[in-house]
């Protein structure tokens, strides 16, 4: 199955499991996580559009680069707090590369590819394992 942002819908999160959530806090977490999934779709679209405009050289246009960094930075932070470490790490590594903090060895294009791969895996999981996510939203403490 080819996974695209459009096929990975937040409503695939198990509604039955969500209904079992007892507190408004847990419901809020479910809602926020669903919004996060939608947001990843928007971010992915933004990143893809920017890549097309950048024509293979992410560092060439300062304004486009700034937009890309902003999008990737937000994705890294949000994925982290929602518990998606792989996306967060891939986005963070890309962000540091785009900011040229981790040196010139990291190729931004390959890191962009890696981030898109992580997002694809994420959406694939959203189709096949949505229930697990809902259970994961229970925050300890």
């Amino acid at each position, binding site marked *: 199955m080819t996974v695209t942002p459009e096929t990975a819908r937040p409503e695939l999160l198990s509604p039955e499991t969500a209904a079992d959530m007892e507190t408004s806090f847990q419901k809020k977490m479910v809602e926020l996580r669903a919004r996060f999934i939608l947001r990843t779709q928007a971010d992915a679209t933004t990143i893809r559009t920017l890549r097309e405009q950048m024509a293979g050289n992410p560092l060439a246009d300062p304004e486009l680069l700034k937009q890309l960094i902003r999008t990737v930075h937000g994705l890294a932070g*949000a994925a982290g707090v929602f518990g998606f470490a792989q996306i967060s790490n891939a986005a*963070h590594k890309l962000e540091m590369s785009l900011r040229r903090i981790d040196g010139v060895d990291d190729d931004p294009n390959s890191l962009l590819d890696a981030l898109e791969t992580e997002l694809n895996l994420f959406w694939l999981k959203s189709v096949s394992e949505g229930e697990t996510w809902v259970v994961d939203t229970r925050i300890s403490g």
Partner: protein
Amino acid sequence: MAKATTLPEKTLVVEDHELVRSFLASWLTERGHNVRPCGQEDLDQLDHLGRHDLVILDLCLGDSDGLEVLQRLASHKFAGDIVLISAFSDSVIETARNIGMDFGLKIVGALRKPLMLEQLDAVLDTPKRPRPHYPHKPVEVITLAMALASRRIAFHYQPILDARTLDILSIEMLARLVSPSGLVGSVYPVLPGASTEDLHNLARCAISATDDLRKVLIASGLGPLPVSINVPSSFVRRCHLFSALEEAALPVTLEITEQDPFEDFNEARLTATSAILKGVRLSLDDFGVANSNVDRFMRMPFNELKVDRSFVSGCADDPFRAAVCRSAAELARLRGAVSVAEGVETEADFDYLRSIGFDRVQGYFFSRPLPTAALVSWISSHRGLAWPPAAVARGAAAAREIAL
């Protein structure tokens, strides 16, 4: 569930990502916080905070950055707690934390993204000690010269211990300023404006005071102990040093401080070497800071390398500080010098320093600087093994077994 801790009156979540902001707001609300989400467009909220409020601040805020927020909070003399979060490296976060503290802000935590909620929980659950209320007192204007002339300089003593056996090897003499009412405080406020001559006089005063200390130690049945005395680099000249050392009643280690460069390096080297040949020990104090650097250590025959407390404190948990300490210990070994860690405040740091081969340790974990009578009491109980605490004693016992 909300925790049974003292909560801030309100908690401002300053974060540019709307979803992260909402997430943190919900999470904190669940814990009983009165949350005010604050995006880039709401930064005016920063101007209306009180001393019982909490700010959770993302250092990366899109077009602006967290340091601007810290400056803004400082301009309003914000006295509440601040927790920093950032995706940048630990060194960036730590530096931002130090900048904030230099602004006079109270940074109670600095966390790296991806944010671990357990870490945030731990920071927020740390018991807050009530701030002591000091009645306003007029600040006394006094110089080092005035303090010396009016005999308002006293000395406190901090033991320096063998890192393996915990035997007392020497005592550092630390100058204290005595107020007209008899209160004893740090001498640091009068040092920045002091002249070179005043600093030399302070060193002479310390050397002279060894006579009193010697008498007390002998009268108490403890026997003489070597002392360490701080002297500025400019004191290491033949015309200053040798006449002053004639007053020394105990074996002396001169700790050359980091503030000033040698006025004449060749003369300083000649004088220092000559002093060593006469039996004086020479220590490079505050290693790693200002003029106390590798170059100085390499070019002068120091007997001792004393690592600055800023690298020692927290070395067990901080890889960078740990690396500095390891390097310093190795440098000392390569030069045949003794390595000393000052500012040891925790058992974890002590264990680490001992594991990497530090020779001597000094700090609040063992004893704070003490007035004479308290020093005598401390040495007596230390030698009688009423001290140290069990954990340290176990470590020392194990070390002795290894040594045997």
